[in-house]
Every structure is written in C-alpha cells, then in structure tokens.
C-alpha cells in the first residue's frame, strides 16, 4: 500500500489497510522511543502547528513530543473559544497560520466538523486532535494499538465502552478502529447518554453494566465530562458512580486477563475506582505511550511527499 492521504480528519473513511499501515509505522516509531537518543531527523525543517481551541494538555503534549522526536519544529497556538461563537475565529486564525507555511496543522476544536471545515481552506495537511463530539482519530488509533500490544489481536474480542457515549468523540473514533478489525463492540451507560441510534454503528447497546462487562476482554471507561452537560443527564455523580462506575466486584465478571482502558484524565472514584486504575489490569499508561508512537507515525506519513502541498 502507498500512503496517499493528505489529512487525518476521522477514522470514518479509513480503510482497514490504512489503519494497519499506521499501526505498522507506529511500531517502527516505538523502536525509536526505546533508544537512548529518542530523536530521528525525519522531519527536519518541517513545521507542525498545534492549534488548540480547547484546553488539552495531554493531547497537545503528546503531539509535541511526537513532533520533536521526529525533529519537526513544533509551534503551539492555544485559544479558548465557545463552540457557538461565529466562524471568524477559526477560519481567520487558520488562514493566518497557513500563510506561515507549516507542513501540518494539528487542530483541537469544540465544534464537530471543525477539522473537516479547516481542511477545505488551508493548503497544509490537517490532523484532527478532537472536534466536538465527532472524532478523535489519533485516540482511536492509539486505543487499537494498545489493545493489539496487550492482546496481539482484536478480532473476536469483546470490547466494552462505558460512559458518556452521547458526547464522546473517543467512542466515535474507536467504533471505527475496533470495528474495522472485527471486534465485538458493546456500548454501555445511562440511557440518557447512550442514544439508541448508536446501535446502527454495529455495536450492541446495553444499560446494564454487568451485562456489558461480563466476559469482556477489554473494558474502556470514558470520562464523565461534567463541563459538557448544561442540563443533567443523570441525577448525581454519586448515583452514576454506583450504577456505572467500574469497581473490582463488577470487573470480576470480565475475563481473567481483561484489560482496563481510559482515555484520561480519570475521575477517580467516579467512573473508575482507584484500586482498578492502578491495578495490573490497567493499560492506561500504555495508552499514553502508544499515543506518542501513533502521532509520530501520522506526522511522518503526512509531512512528506509530493502530494502534500507545502
């Protein structure tokens, strides 16, 4: 396969081959990360702009480290906007930055579709680092990569995602990455946060956490994003933690070698108990590590070649 993609806006239109290509490239990148000198000159002279309209220290840092490991010049641009502010902020800012001729813009924005929109108006490559409730493709890829490292395969695994499905961009990317690889996907949460239409993704929907966790190979907990909810989708955090939080008792229903994932940051004691977060089943920190390799792979794949306009 030849890599011909200019932008990474979402995994919705990624083929299985492309996903595998990224994972293979990430494996090579992970080799670099195990060395004493964790830096290669591949993107020397290229500029990558982190354009973040939403606070996200983790994702931004991960991209920054990934770029620096590849010797790219990393520039950070942060600006807080509300999701319903008029478009001038995004388009004007992006065109300004595009005029400075970066190779790649990495964008995080509170509006769904912001990365798609941007990609139509700039000449550089665009990587979506999270757009509203739409997608977070690098997270979807790193989750897949983490499971592949832990389990060697994804096909046939029962993978359960629990929490705020309605607002989660992580889910919308992971459904594609795990789905393409043949996982048995389950979505679980309070009914007010799990729209019934999501069943059309091919995932099984349940509002019963026990059913969701029973015999699961992978349990992914989502962060309850209180800041996203203008009107309450459930009565209280206390009740949420009791009905939809993962603790040892419920996790004991999963397969013996099941792993726990979380895109972070964790609300300890809400969606995930302390005990489990720090247990041997948790691969949460491996996810973070995989994140750098995945992002290096994508930066590398997008930053070169004639087809990318610079």
């Amino acid at each position, binding site marked *: 396969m030849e890599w011909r993609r200019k932008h990474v806006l979402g995994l919705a239109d990624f083929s299985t081959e492309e996903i595998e290509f990224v994972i293979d490239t990430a494996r090579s990148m992970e080799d670099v990360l195990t060395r004493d000198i964790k830096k290669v000159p591949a993107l020397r002279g290229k500029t990558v702009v982190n354009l973040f309209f939403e606070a996200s220290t983790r994702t931004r840092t991960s991209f920054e480290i990934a770029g620096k490991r590849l010797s790219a010049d990393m520039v950070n641009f942060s600006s807080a906007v509300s999701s319903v502010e*008029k*478009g*001038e902020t*995004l388009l004007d800012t992006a065109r300004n930055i595009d005029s400075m001729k970066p190779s790649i813009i990495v964008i995080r924005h509170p509006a769904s*579709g912001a990365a798609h929109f941007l990609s139509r108006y700039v000449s550089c490559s665009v990587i979506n680092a999270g757009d*509203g*409730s*739409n997608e977070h493709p690098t997270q979807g890829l790193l989750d897949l990569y983490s499971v592949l490292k832990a389990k060697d395969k994804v096909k046939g695994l029962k993978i359960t995602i629990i929490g705020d499905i309605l607002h989660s961009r992580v889910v919308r990317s992971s459904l594609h990455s795990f789905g393409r690889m043949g996982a048995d996907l389950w979505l679980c949460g309070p009914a007010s946060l799990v729209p019934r*239409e999501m069943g059309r993704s091919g995932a099984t929907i349940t509002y019963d956490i026990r059913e969701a966790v029973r015999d699961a190979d992978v349990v992914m907990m989502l962060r309850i994003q209180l800041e996203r909810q203008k009107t309450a989708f459930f009565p209280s955090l206390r009740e949420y933690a009791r009905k939809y939080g993962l603790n040892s008792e419920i996790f004991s229903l999963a397969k013996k070698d099941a792993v726990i994932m979380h895109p972070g940051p964790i609300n300890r004691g809400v969606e995930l108990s302390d005990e489990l977060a720090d247990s041997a089943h948790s691969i949460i920190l491996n996810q973070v590590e995989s994140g750098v390799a995945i992002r290096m792979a994508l930066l590398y794949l997008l930053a070169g070649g004639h087809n990318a306009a610079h």
Partner: protein
Amino acid sequence: MLLIKEGRVIDPESGRDEWGSIVVADGKVADFLPNGEAPKRFDGTVIDAAGKWVLPGLIDMHVHLRDPGFEWKEDIRTGTAAAASGGFASVVCMANTNPVNDHPEVTRYIREKAASQGTANVFPVAAVTRGLEGKEMTDFAELQEAGAVAFSDDGRPVRSALILRRALEYAKAFDLLLMEHAEDHELSEGGAANEGWTAHRLGIPPIPSAAEEIAIARDILLARFTGGRIHIQHISTKMGVDLLRMGKRAGVRVTGETAPHYFTLTDAAIEGYNTHAKMNPPLRGEEDRMAILEGIVDGTIDVIASDHAPHDEYTKRCEFIAASNGIIGLETALPLSMGLLAGGKVTPARLVELMSAAPARILGLKEKGSLRKGADADITIVDPETEWEFGESDVRSKSRNTPFFGWKMRGRAVAVLCHGRITHSLLKGIAPVA
C-alpha cells in the same frame, strides 16, 4: 391589453383545467376563451402559450426578504426579482428584520419599497410580539391597517402558551391569521441537526423531532380552545403531519405548510458538515419525508412555501454548529415541487392549489389565487417539459446558500404577470417591464 394564447389553463379555484386563452385588461383577468376561439387579430401583446401551463400567479407565503436591516443578504428589489424568476407573483415576508416588523412604520416601509422597486406583490407579516421577544403583543389592528396580512414570530416560536392563547383570542375580533414557527425551544436548544443516526454519527448536537411535534400539538390545542385561527409553518416531521390531520378532523381552524426541502432531502444531506443543508427546523429522516409527501397527497398539508432564507456566504462558511440556519428557495420551489407530479399522485391542479389557491384563501387575498373573470391578472406560465440544471447564474437573490446547485430540474416558470405587467420572461420576443 394582453392575450395569453392557447395554453393549458389550470385554475382549481374555478374548477378549470382546459386548453384555452386568457385575455388580460387593466390588470385584471378579462376573459377566458376555449381553444379555437382566440381572436385571429389582437390589438396588444400576444404570448404564445402552446404546450405551456397557465396558472394563477404563485404565492410564496413564507419568505425572508431581509429588508430592512440585513440588505447585504437580500433586499426587497432582489428578493422580488428572485420571486419573479422562480414563478411567483406574490410573496409573504416574515417579520424578523431589523428593526422587527412590529410597528406600522416598518410595515408601510416594506409595502412602499415593494411598490416602487419590487417585481412581485409583497405582503408583510407582522410580529406577534414586540421585538419577537415573546412577551407583549404587537398592535394587531394597527398593523393590519398598515398592510400586515398575518402575524408570526417566525424564526422562533411564541414560547409562552399564555401569550399565544391571548393572541389567538384577541386576533379573532379582526379575523387575523396567526402563523407559528412550532418549536419547543427548551428541547431544541443548542441543537443543529435532526436527532438521528446522521447527527449522532457526526457528533452534531441534535434537535429531537418532538421539539416540533410538541409545539404543533400545543398550537392546535390552543386554537381549538380559543376558536382562533392558526397556520403551522414549515412542518418537517411525521407526527407533525399526523397532528395537523387530527386537528383538522376535530374541526380546529388550523392549516399547515411545508417547504420543498422537507420532501426532497433528508438529514443525510448534512454529511460532510454541509452548512448549506442546515436549517431550522432541520432536515429530518426518511420516515418524516415520506409522511410529508403523504400529507401533501391527502390534503393534510395545505401549502408549499419556500422558507426562502438568504444568508451571505460568510455566515455559512464556518463550523456547522456556528452556521446560520436556512437556504434560499424562491428559485427552486416550483421545479422541486413539480417533482411531485412524477408519481401521478399529485396532479397539476393540486400543485396550483398548494402554491397559489390555498395561500390566497388562508391569507384572505380575495383577488389572488384564481383566474376567474375580474381577479387580479397575476399569472404564472410554466413550461412543464423543459429540463435544466440549477446553477449560480440562475440566481437573482443576493445570496447563494442552497444545497441544490447542480440539480437537474424539470419544469420551469417561463413568464410571470403581476397585475397584468410582465415581471419575468424567458420567452422569445416577450420582455419583462423595466
């Protein structure tokens, strides 16, 4: 004097659908002559209507002319030019201008500007509440005297059931029509697309169909209770049609309209975050679209109106959630509606009913919507066979916000008369008046 010679005259109001000629004199319909009886020599303009349909001038009862206040999007001159080009002799313009049409001065401004610069009849709708704020009623009677044909806070609903109740009751004394943009704002707030698989997949904050349906139910129940008259604007949902049907059966004085995009498109059109398919109410699912079609066929839905909502490129060239609601529609409403004829379930006469006779009747425009002798000579001549592709060069509106560029259309208005004046013509040798 003007002769429209030997076309298919379709006038449901007088029960006529036959080939013949129409004589126009002094801005009125002077005579109908069956084929073969047209005079050999005629002292005046002769429009050859062979193979064409001759219809009472179309009336678009839901249009935003953006004048006063948003003239960079549209003004009365360009809006009525778009209307004429799309086959309309009359438009009914909504009150969400700046200033809002909640004062007789604004109503008069619109009517005077339309009279001097317009190429279509313009009937203003005044606001139900001052500033569209949903709090105090406007001066209905005075506004009516200034020329308002109906009252609506379109763009938003009258949120308070109490205010709407009072308005319905008060309007009865003057036989005024209230028109409602039916939306439960609390349910729809923050939403940008129909709640369904497409919105969930794209992560767009959803608007549930129940937001419209609950409001329609409320409006119908209040009309029933007060005995007032209400017209439900731009119905987009299946249950909305069902509720309208139920209300009519129960004898409520309720009528309803839909727009061409609700029976032509579904929410699949927003794929790729296409802001040109963003409107309020939003495009719905296939089940809703089918129910709208059914409502048109069985007569539940009274009117097709365009909800022509011009927006500058700038307010559409942004993130989906931030984009303005609405599309232009005056120039696509007729050809898209003619698409309904293909299945045979909608007859040409029914189409004329939906786009001319019914709006005239609902709005109480006694001289419009008919080709009977003595009616205003508002006439739309349609070539039902012509095939064309809708493109930017067809647009007379100031704005270009439409999802229909590149669509293959069948049928088009080739000439429009307004009080006997030619306001639009694609016919050889027939020029519109300057």
